[in-house]
Each structure stands twice: as C-alpha cells, then as structure tokens.
C-alpha cells in the first residue's frame, strides 16, 4: 500500500477524531456549560454510565428501522416496477407520490397512533413511509431510461414488453435500486426516531426525549452518537451490498453522470 492510499484509508478516522478534539477543545476554551453543549468526554461518560439503557433502546430502534426498511424495499421495488412498466400508471401515481413525499412525516405519526396505538408499529410505519420514496423513484428511473434504440433492436426481434423488462429493464434498474438503499436506510432511522420521540416508551428517540426532560444533556448527545453509529454501519452494509450486487455498473461507469 502506498503512502497516499494509506492516508485515504486512515482519513475517516483522523477526521472523526479531529472533530471530537476540536469539539472538546472549544468547549473547554470557551467554557461552554455542560447543559448547553457537553464535551465529548462527558458524552462518553454518559455512554458508559447508561450503556445498558442505550444498548437496549438502540436495538429497539434498529429493529423498528429494519422492519420499516424491509417493508419499504418490498413495496418500493414493486411500485417502482409497476410505475416503470406503464406510462399511464406513472402519470397517475407520480403527482400523488410527490405530494405524499412532501408531507412531513411528523404530521403523520398522530394519525398512525390513532390507528395503531403508540410504540413499535407507528415507528415501523413511519420508517417505512419516509424511506420507500427514493426506492420507488430510483427503480422507476432505471426502467424509464432504457435507450430507445436498444428497445427498437429488441422490438424488431419480436420482443414483448415483458421480454424487454426481464432482459434489460430489471437488470439495468438494479444499480439504481441498490444505490437508493443507502439513502433509504438512513431515512428509515429518521422515521423511527421521529415516531419514537412522539409516541413511544422505548427506543433511542424516547430515551433522548426523557433525557431532555431531566436535563441530562450529555445523555441526549450519547443518544445522537448511538444513532449516528447505527446509521453509519447500516449505510456501510448497504454500500457493500451495492458493490457486491452491481459491481459491473461501477466498473463500466454506468449511470454515473
């Protein structure tokens, strides 16, 4: 490994450590009170002290997120294929979807609570609602951007629409699909935490809400860090999945404009 490569490998860690060092330094130099912005050392201490609670609630948040995300993948993939299949359906559904996506999901949580009560279910559904949109859009884009000339080549061979979908549409929309998973999983976390902090007795969202009520500011930040770590890990897993499944797209420079 060359020096430059080594540096690139280390860069994420160096920058993260650098951020914490600057944060710690700034808090000390400007003597910022802990209830306003706790230093990383205080956050770490809270992390240590409340580890059982953080751990338990992190798992609850992760579970709701993953279930919501899985629903979003299934539903998003199906809807994306349907939309990419038919122009009429595309034209009909697209404005609805944009409108739906524009609704702040915070506003939907009370309705979900009305229907399903508080706790796990609204968290899952909020995660689902917030994360399926990018999946649908990406899958539909992959299908809708088939080169017209390639379509002509296949049609002149007598290919049916289903043939074109199977041979071209679906394989070429896979990179878009796997690319969208990275965005979707992070959004799913956002959805879960929104719902947990409004309508749940569990989860990191709820933990942070309680910490806020009791003025345990370092614990709030510890919750944020726990979320960030979960988000990074899941994003990273999705990125690996993407490379595994659609390495050809990256090697060929497909759809990277």
């Amino acid at each position: 490994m060359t020096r430059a490569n080594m540096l690139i490998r280390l860069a994420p860690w160096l920058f993260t450590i650098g951020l914490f060092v600057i944060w710690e330094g700034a808090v000390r130099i400007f003597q910022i009170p802990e209830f306003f912005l706790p230093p990383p050392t205080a956050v770490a201490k809270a992390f240590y002290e409340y580890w059982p609670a953080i751990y338990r609630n992190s798992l609850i948040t992760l579970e709701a997120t993953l279930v919501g995300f899985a629903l979003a993948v299934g539903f998003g993939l199906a809807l994306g294929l349907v939309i990419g299949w038919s122009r009429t359906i595309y034209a009909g559904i697209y404005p609805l979807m944009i409108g739906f996506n524009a609704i702040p999901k915070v506003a939907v949580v009370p309705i979900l609570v009305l229907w399903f009560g508080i706790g796990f279910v609204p968290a899952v559904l909020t995660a689902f609602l917030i994360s399926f949109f990018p999946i649908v859009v990406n899958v539909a884009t992959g299908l809708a951007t088939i080169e017209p000339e390639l379509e002509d080549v296949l049609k002149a061979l007598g290919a049916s629409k289903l043939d074109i979908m199977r041979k071209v549409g679906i394989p070429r929309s896979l990179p878009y699909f796997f690319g969208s998973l990275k965005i979707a999983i992070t959004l799913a976390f956002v959805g879960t935490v929104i719902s947990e902090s409004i309508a749940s007795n569990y989860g990191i969202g709820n933990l942070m809400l309680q910490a806020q009520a009791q003025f345990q500011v370092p614990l709030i930040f510890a919750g944020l860090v726990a979320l960030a770590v979960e988000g990074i890990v899941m994003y990273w897993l999705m990125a690996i999945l993407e490379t595994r499944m659609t390495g050809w797209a990256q090697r060929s420079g497909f759809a990277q404009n």
Partner: protein
Amino acid sequence: MSGFIDLHGVSHRYGGIQAGPEGVLAVEDLTISVGRGEFAAVVGPSGCGKSTLMKLVTGLQFPYAGSVTVGGEKVSQPVKIAGMAFQAPTLLPWRTTLENLLLPLEIVQPHRSELRRKKSEYVARAEKLLASVGLGGFGAKYPWQLSGGMQQRTSLCRALIHEPQLLMLDEPFGALDAFTREELWCVIRDLHAARKITIVLVTHDLREAVFLADRVFVMSSRPGRILVERKIDIPRPRDLEVTFTKEFQDIVHDLRGHIVQARQ
C-alpha cells in the same frame, strides 16, 4: 412492386395524424422498393426522415397514409425478422460480449425455446461470428473493456446472430475513425456476399454508400421523399482500392450534387 421491401406513398407524422400541424411530418409520399438480397443505401440531409424510414420498415412506427410491406406481408407490428444496428452500440454492460450476442436468441423463435438444449451450438455460432469480424477470443470481455470499434462490431454481430433475412443499419459507423470504418465496410461487404441477406444502410458518408450498395437512394429534406435513385454498377467483389478510381469518384461527386440540391 414486387420487392422484398415495398413502401408505397407512405406519409408519417410524429405525434399521430390528430396532432395536425403541431406534429412533425417526417416523410411524405415516400415510395421505395428494395429487392430480396439487395444492398440499399439511403442518404440525405440530417433530419430528413431516414431513421423514420427504418422504423417504418421494421414496424416500429406506422404510417398514416400509404402501405408498407416486407417479405410480401403488410407491416402491422414489429417485423420479428430484422437485425438492427445503430450509431451507438447499445450493448448491455452487465453481459459479456458473448452473452450480448446471445440476447437475440433468447427472444427470437425458434431459438428461444431451444436455447437451453442447443446452448453449446449457439455459443459456437456466436464465437464463429465474433471471429469473422476479428473479435475471436474476446467473448468473455465486457463491452466496456472493448474499444468503440470493437463494440460496434459486437453490435453488428448481435444484429446477425439469429441469421435475419433483413439487416437494418442506421449510421452504424458514424462514430468511428476512418480506418476502422473502412475495415468494417469490408466486414459488411463480406457478410452480404456470404449470406445474401437484404441490407438497408442509412449513412451520411457517400463513399460508404457507393462502396457498399447496389443502389443508393437520395432523400429530400423534411418531409422526406426519394429524390434520386442511383444504381451502382461497380462489379463485385469490390476492393477498397475501387474507392480511388475515377468511376467511383464520379458517382460520389454526382450524388453530392443531389444532396446539395436536396438541402436547399
């Protein structure tokens, strides 16, 4: 009126007839006939409707007036017997060169249902075809590992793998350098000689048209009609050297004159 391809009084408007003046009248009262096994070249100003002509012949578009018949049958759906190649190679990046070649066999009957049983036979056929265009041994490479000229050759092979009776080429060499282009002229020339298929070639390159074709059709500017039809009597097999003869250049010069007129 007994060619392999017959277009009679064909008019086509994009956006449909109901689009009226808002649609684009691409071709109007177009009449052209190409015999079985003939090599026809179509030249004309940009935007005159050459690609539209290709789509009408292959049943990818339907005219609002006039008739299109191919192989004695009225064209009312995509023809299913044509191989097509365009300026862009449009290969599938997730398939190897060989897999790209097999794509038409996964669609066209009877190959489609025999694919599994005769796989090795088809693979051998594809490899032979690749070798015939100078791509022997490249089957396992992905398209993005090939040069532009090699991709274009692959695209040509894909158009030929199912042994179509009709080959439609829309500026297939437009994006290539002069030397590669001339090489591929010879590839097409030999394919035509060996297989006796009917070929329609759209091109901007008059030398290409005269070198390859039995007849050259000059189209008017939009809406396109056939202005001039010129038989090329240069005997076959033609060698690249023929392009430097006076006879050849006179024909090119003459055609150029017609195009210049067509553009006005």
